[in-house]
């Protein structure tokens, strides 16, 4: 956000220096790229910009998006959360399996409680014991995968009465013509954007991620701040599990496998710094949507879906490069 404000005066004076161009590209490049790719895809596929396709893509992207909202908060706070992928597997298997055993309401409540507990463990280890977040959440990633396999015994879980249950609302329902997953994604994104931009809590998270020492000296309780970001992340995963389980009406152990990287890709694409202290929820939303539209667009053009990984790689490199180029005010380094 800071770089966006810097670029405005230069543009307004009309003197578009090279550095000004760079900073404009880096700040708004993601939006420009978004519009550009939409244009290219719509050129190749008639259905791409149809309302039903856009709704389909946003609905598909909302699972990744919901998780990305939470992880963005963790990253702004100066940490990482790699455990979200297997946490999603865990929560989805749990809520689907318990649905038939203890009823949807209890299943959802229990799933939220257990998912938040995992978040609390992450938050405790990282916030209070000050362990490295990369290591803690990476270890958590495989630990949860183990728990899921023990819990399910490797079997798929299914909901028997797929037509009759109100649980279908979260993944398949519509309110006012808009799919519920999109509404949940939108609502979470708006609430978190407001919290991060306009509340003292949000400012404290930015402070802790940007300069932890200064934050502590100014009286911010850093431990609790970090701890809370992992609760937010876990809460978002639980919401995503609700959507995923309801959408598929079943689950398998590896359902969330690799989601942590998709989530990170969306966040990086949006321009949130992995070093913490900077970033925004709404740019993460754009980043996640770009990934969704690329996948859908390539598929409509007839390419296999794994081409998107290569395309995503190119885009991420470009995004990171432009960001760095803006900071050092030139595209290439002068000395090797």
């Amino acid at each position, binding site marked *: 956000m800071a770089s966006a404000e810097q670029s405005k005066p230069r543009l307004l004076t009309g003197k578009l220096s090279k550095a000004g161009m760079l900073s404009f590209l880096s700040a708004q490049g993601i939006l420009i790229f978004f519009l550009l790719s939409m244009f290219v895809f719509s050129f190749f596929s008639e259905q791409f910009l149809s309302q039903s396709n856009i709704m389909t893509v946003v609905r598909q992207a909302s699972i990744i998006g919901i998780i990305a909202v939470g992880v963005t908060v963790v990253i702004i706070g100066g940490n990482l959360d790699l455990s979200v992928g297997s946490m999603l597997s865990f929560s989805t298997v749990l809520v689907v399996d318990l649905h038939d055993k203890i009823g949807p309401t209890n299943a959802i409540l229990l799933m939220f409680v257990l998912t938040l507990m995992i978040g609390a463990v992450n938050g405790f280890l990282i916030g209070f014991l000050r362990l490295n977040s990369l290591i803690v959440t990476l270890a958590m990633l495989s630990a949860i995968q183990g728990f899921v396999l023990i819990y399910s015994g490797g*079997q798929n879980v*299914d909901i028997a009465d797929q037509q009759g249950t109100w649980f279908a609302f979260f993944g398949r329902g519509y309110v006012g013509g808009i799919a519920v997953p999109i509404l949940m994604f939108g609502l979470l994104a708006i609430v978190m954007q407001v919290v991060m931009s306009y509340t003292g809590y949000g400012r404290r998270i930015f402070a802790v991620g940007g300069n932890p020492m200064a934050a502590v000296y100014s009286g911010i309780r850093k431990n609790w701040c970090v701890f809370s970001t992992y609760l937010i992340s876990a809460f978002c995963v639980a919401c995503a599990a609700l959507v*995923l389980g309801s959408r598929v009406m079943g689950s398998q152990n590896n359902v969330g496998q690799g989601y942590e990287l998709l989530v990170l890709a969306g966040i990086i694409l949006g321009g949130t710094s992995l070093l913490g202290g900077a970033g925004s929820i709404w740019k993460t939303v754009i980043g996640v949507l770009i990934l969704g539209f690329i996948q*859908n667009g390539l598929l*409509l053009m007839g390419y296999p879906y794994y081409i998107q990984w290569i395309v995503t790689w190119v885009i991420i490199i470009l995004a990171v490069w432009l960001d760095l180029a803006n900071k050092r005010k030139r595209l290439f380094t002068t000395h090797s």
Partner: protein
Amino acid sequence: MFKKTAIAVSVIMMSITTAQAETTYRIGITQNNVGVDSYQTTYESAFEAAAERAGNVDIVVLDAGGDVARQIGQMQDLIQQRVDAIIIWPTNGQAVIPAIRQAHNAGIPVVVTNSKIAEAGLEFIAAFSGPDNVQQGISSAEMMCDALGGEGQIVQISGQPGYTTAMERAGGFEERLAEACPGVELMETQPGNWNRERAQRVMEDFLTKYDRIDGVYSGDDNMGVGALNAANGAGRADEIIFIGATNFAVGYDAIERGEYYGSIYQSPVDDAEAALKTALDVLAGEDIPKMNFFETPKITAENLEEFDRPVF
């Protein structure tokens, strides 16, 4: 499990007093990725149960966790342990061949189960036991042709790219469809990675892309049900014929409800028992063919009651 078998075996050994005493075989098995899906999990328990029933078998059960390097390590461990035979569920049909050759050179017969290895490795194995996935693809193509009356346009959701089962099913399906049913056009194939959610997303995109889809062939029922979910969501399930393979419980139920046309019945229990039987036949020195396929019949609403609901 291992202990139980050992106890069972020793009890049998003690009770046998005459010269009819059976030899006890030690058979090692390295599996692909137990726990990743229900089929493999059921296979493992069925294999252990079959070994217990056989009585004269000690088993060493290993799992590669989908990792080729780990599977090669496990092969070498089993060779070191001098087991009597090795059963391998290859993680990769090509990369495991050197390890299989090592076992062959050490005089240990190798039986490949479920999923084939590449041509180059066939000379080093004693036998293959498993489903005929090419035939399954052919059967699915025939069902699709019957269901559509020889006319229509369809899409395919295939399994994991590079996985032998996925390629063989898709290959058998495409070839047979082209030759037996020229009126049915396969418009597009996309991988669904054996994952229901992924298949659901792929199908949603297909439904956007094509205004008319008459049929969907999925590499297994798990993905097929994902496709059905997507079509239900778009309100277009009635106009589409769904055909899968490896009948899952969810697919079985969907056939029963009349939403899903048909599938291929493939039991992991049959698969596991066939693998053990093949290994025992090899050890007994019986003359068996190199390729041993167990029956995987077509299943539709018409013959549904002949089959038990799958446990997975």
